[in-house]
């Protein structure tokens, strides 16, 4: 993530904006390390953001093996409006959209190339 990025931090920080936008582009959620990689941030920074968002009820996480998958909380009372806003904001983040487009979430047989 560039330090001289002039895009406004709508949700308080650039990392929080990107985490939310990337999650809005995900059907099944992402684990923190992958989420950090996709938005070009550190896993620690993303972890801190996720904890805050989870505490607010905006995102949820579920354990999968030794990691946790994070996703937007569709049960949250503002979930529909938030997702619509994030999908709109995503147009200001073509690099995040492009990574989301090329990131494969659906199952893929072992041995097949990504």
């Amino acid at each position, binding site marked *: 993530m560039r330090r001289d990025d002039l895009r406004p931090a709508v949700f308080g920080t650039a990392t929080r904006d990107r985490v939310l936008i990337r999650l809005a582009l995900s059907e099944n959620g992402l684990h923190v390390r992958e989420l950090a990689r996709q938005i070009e941030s550190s896993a620690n920074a993303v972890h801190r953001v996720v904890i805050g968002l989870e505490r*607010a*009820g905006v995102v949820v996480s579920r354990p999968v093996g030794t990691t946790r998958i994070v996703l937007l909380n*569709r*049960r949250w*009372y*503002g*979930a*529909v409006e938030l997702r619509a806003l994030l999908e709109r904001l995503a147009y200001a983040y073509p690099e995040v959209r492009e990574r989301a487009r090329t990131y494969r979430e659906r199952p893929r047989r072992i041995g097949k190339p990504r």
Partner: protein
Amino acid sequence: MIPPGDASLVDVAFAACTVLDRAGETAVLCGGSAAAYYVPDLYQSLDIDFVVEVGAAPHVVDRALATIGYLRASEGHYRNDRLPYTLAFPIGPLAIGREYVAAWRTQRREDRVLHVYTPTDVVRDRFLHYWAWGDRTALDVALAVARAHAADVDLAAFTAWTERELAADPSYDPSRIGRFLANLEPL
């Protein structure tokens, strides 16, 4: 007022709600713990979830819960060394899906008080858990509460609510409503 070591979830919920009420904070029992209140023989939980009014002062909550031996362990969670139950305070407002919850039941036991979701809201809440995440346990709990409190569960209101949720978020699977109602019918 301090719950004994063998206190049940409901005992602790009454104690916590009462001290908060006396401190001027209305805390409503919700989530799985509200289900455990209505069907204690069928569903138990070690997490007791309350939603307090938005803007409740943390120091007031801390002080009230300390009087029953519950101390803040992390943000929003309180523990008592002698009891297995954790008190959790998810951030409000009180809502099920897109809809705010403005009314709840107030139960009394001698001088104690407990604000808790109505049976209809427990069914909505547990069903939504199943609807959103596919959690079959939540479906079973919703069904158990609906059966055990059939006279108090407003199925017409439930169905109308599912239609509103579905209209707002068409990605919800409508067949899960049918599964819930079909499982309810034979009884």
